[in-house]
């Protein structure tokens, strides 16, 4: 069996096993699906997408009319929360896709080229990795100015170093295997080897790391928006709602509770999903600590 075929078989087998036997996987997937469906519904269903000030009074406690209460401008918190979930997920997913592309390319090239190329990529990654994530994100956001672009760039720069290192390590093992050596000796072009043989064999690692990067992205977006550097009003995001809720924690606690718990659920679901995927796609890294 070739490396490509072996990898496909492993990934497919792992995913098939997930489909049949892992309640944690299904719970996490269910939670994420629910959040995403809710945010889509929030944008499409009349009544849920009504964020105008005339909806209710200011800081109304949760009621039948407003299940999550209202915010400081009398807007339905449910509508704001659903919009916020969508914004946070869209931003985080976009950032993770960028991260996955950049980190995978860097990691594979570094592993395949080896030598100085690998040292340079990894050491730059180390330098970036040495900064606390939120501090690095703040530096970028402060340089670019507050907003969604700053949040996206921050997330990418925060998540790229770790993912590059993980993909690079996985790719380094792959490039030493016989089928890669054979391809090199046979004169197959380097880009083709990196895509056909290396990328396919590190795909599992990329998927697993992307899920972890997604949880970091949600957290970084939350942190930046909470501090005023991320998503700006009148848009809504989980971090922005948490920031507003923090000010009114004593008088209107429902804002912080709703946004904070949603963020916890989202991050928990993504992390659980990542763990399940790791157990199946990278079984050697799953360590039972008990």
């Amino acid at each position, binding site marked *: 069996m070739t490396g490509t075929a072996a990898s496909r078989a492993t990934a497919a087998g792992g995913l098939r096993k997930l489909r049949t036997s892992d309640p944690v996987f299904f719970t996490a997937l269910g939670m994420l699906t629910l959040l995403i469906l809710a945010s889509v519904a929030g944008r499409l269903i009349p009544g849920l997408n009504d964020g105008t*000030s005339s909806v209710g009074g200011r800081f109304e406690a949760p009621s039948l009319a407003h299940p999550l209460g209202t915010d*400081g*401008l009398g807007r339905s918190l449910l509508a704001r929360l659903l919009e916020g979930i969508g914004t946070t997920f869209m931003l985080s997913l976009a950032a993770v896709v960028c991260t996955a592309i950049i980190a995978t390319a860097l990691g594979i090239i570094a592993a395949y080229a080896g030598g100085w190329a690998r040292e340079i990529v990894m050491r730059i990654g180390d330098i970036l990795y040495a900064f606390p994530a939120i501090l690095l994100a703040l530096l970028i956001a402060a340089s670019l*100015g507050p907003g969604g672009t700053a949040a996206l760039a921050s997330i990418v720069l925060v998540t790229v170093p770790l993912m590059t290192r993980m993909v690079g390590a996985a790719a380094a093992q792959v490039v030493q295997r016989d089928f890669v050596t054979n391809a090199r000796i046979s004169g197959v072009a380097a880009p083709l080897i990196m895509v056909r043989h290396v990328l396919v064999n590190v795909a599992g690692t990329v998927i697993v790391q992307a899920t972890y990067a997604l949880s970091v992205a949600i957290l970084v977006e939350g942190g930046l928006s909470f501090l*005023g550097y991320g998503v700006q009003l009148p848009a809504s995001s989980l971090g922005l709602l948490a920031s507003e809720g923090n*000010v009114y924690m004593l*008088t209107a606690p429902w804002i912080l509770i709703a946004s904070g718990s949603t963020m916890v659920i989202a991050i928990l679901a993504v992390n659980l999903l990542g763990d399940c995927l790791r157990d199946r796609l990278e079984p050697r890294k799953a360590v039972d600590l008990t």
Partner: protein
Amino acid sequence: MRSKTKTLTGVAVVAALVLSACSGQNGDSDDAELDLPDGYAAYDDPSADSAGGTLSMQLDYDTAETGGLDPATAEIARSWTIMGLVYESLVSIGPDFEIEPELASSWEQPDETTYVFDLQPDATFSNGRPVSADDVVGSFERLLEMAALWAGQLGPIESIENTSEGDAQQVTITLERPYTPLLAALANTPAAILPMEELEAGDFDPAEEMLGSGAFSVADHRQDEYWVFEANQEWWNADSLGVDELRIEISGDDQTRLAGLRDGSSQFSNFSNPDALSLLESAQGVTAASQTQSDFFYLMFNALGDSAMADQETRQLVNAAIDREQLVDVALAGAAVPTGVTPANLPDACSAETLQSATTEVEAGALEGMALSLLVYNSDPSLVAIGQVVQQQLEAAGATVELESLDYGSYADRVYTAQPGQFDLALGWFAGYADPSMVTSWWDPDTAIFNAGFMESHDDLNAAIEEARGLEPGEERAAALQTVCELVDDYSEMVPLATRPQVVGYRSDSLGITLLSDEGYGDFLRGIVDFRMLES
């Protein structure tokens, strides 16, 4: 059964304790409010002893860095407040916007164009040199020669002369024609008296350092981070000062300042968020007070750009689509009132309800197809809240509005620096001052050069502004100011929305403060010379 009764009793006791703890401060506050003299939102007997020591406070933002430390060129209210700790003007503002002595111990007006000021005999700069009439004359001449923005508020000054006789220091200001707001204009920090002898000798650079005759002198400062002031022992009333050292930390986050008050790490904070009053209600040892401001929020239209806002009728329609009552109720927690150009809480102010924008009904869809940008700066939470409500109101009328929340530098570049401005609509706020005919000056772009990028100069409006400034308070002036308000509403290039509330919170268990109930220059520290540190 017994166990259940015990549990219920326990819950009731805990609930009672919590409720009593929460309500304690409110009772104290209410009692304190009952004793307040007229014109004060908070009052502490200035003759009572102070324990002295360091007063720690947190403010939401610092002076404008670009303006340096020169009071003559200070253009924002926070610069006036901070610089006002060090510098003195001839006069100040007291309760109900009355003009009070400061560096001038008294003044008289022998005719309607002449003002004679006698200086405090003991007035001394913090370097120990007595303040002279020449410092006053030199400071005003410098202000006028610099063509600083505030020079436009001093009116038609013909001459400023040193008329001292003997040791008594006296200055006479002569006007070309009557100008009612002169004293209110002299009361602001840009009209502060500088040590001209040192300045002219090159020993003192007002842009880099502060040397005044006020109650405090600067010990340390890092822009946008902190200030440390020390009591100025040379101040003419130094014995009455209740604070030895003043530490001001700049903290833009409302929650941080609220937490600082709650845990006692800060003894005084300001909030532009009117909800701060309710947020501090349950904080033990903290009292919050609301100050009525003549300051007000306004909406700018880019009449000189290439958008739909270049058309006067469209601007009028957009102006009329804004429901100011809803804006006050929703964005300002009901703690403000709609206003015309003349601040609603000043005498002779025009009636905002009678203006065309207030009486015109705008139908849904009237602004259909219009795409507008609305700029706000994100350091003022009230401005962002108003922006969201305005956005929703205009969208209800059919427009598509993109609300851009920017840092102040980016905002100022697009609104004030760019010629023409790079925006359709923008929100800001003005100090309303102590005389209703002062702020009207900013509707003349020849005087308010910062507006030249988005509004035109109109002869009829300028003439109406000028006429009102020459009239004594009363019916005639009220009528003239009503004309100004109507013209401003008609041109709809810069329209007032609502007054701007201000809340201060302080640790009433360790600090007694004096706060005027009405303020016109955003100066919530005007009464700091009467602050008193309490024994812990």
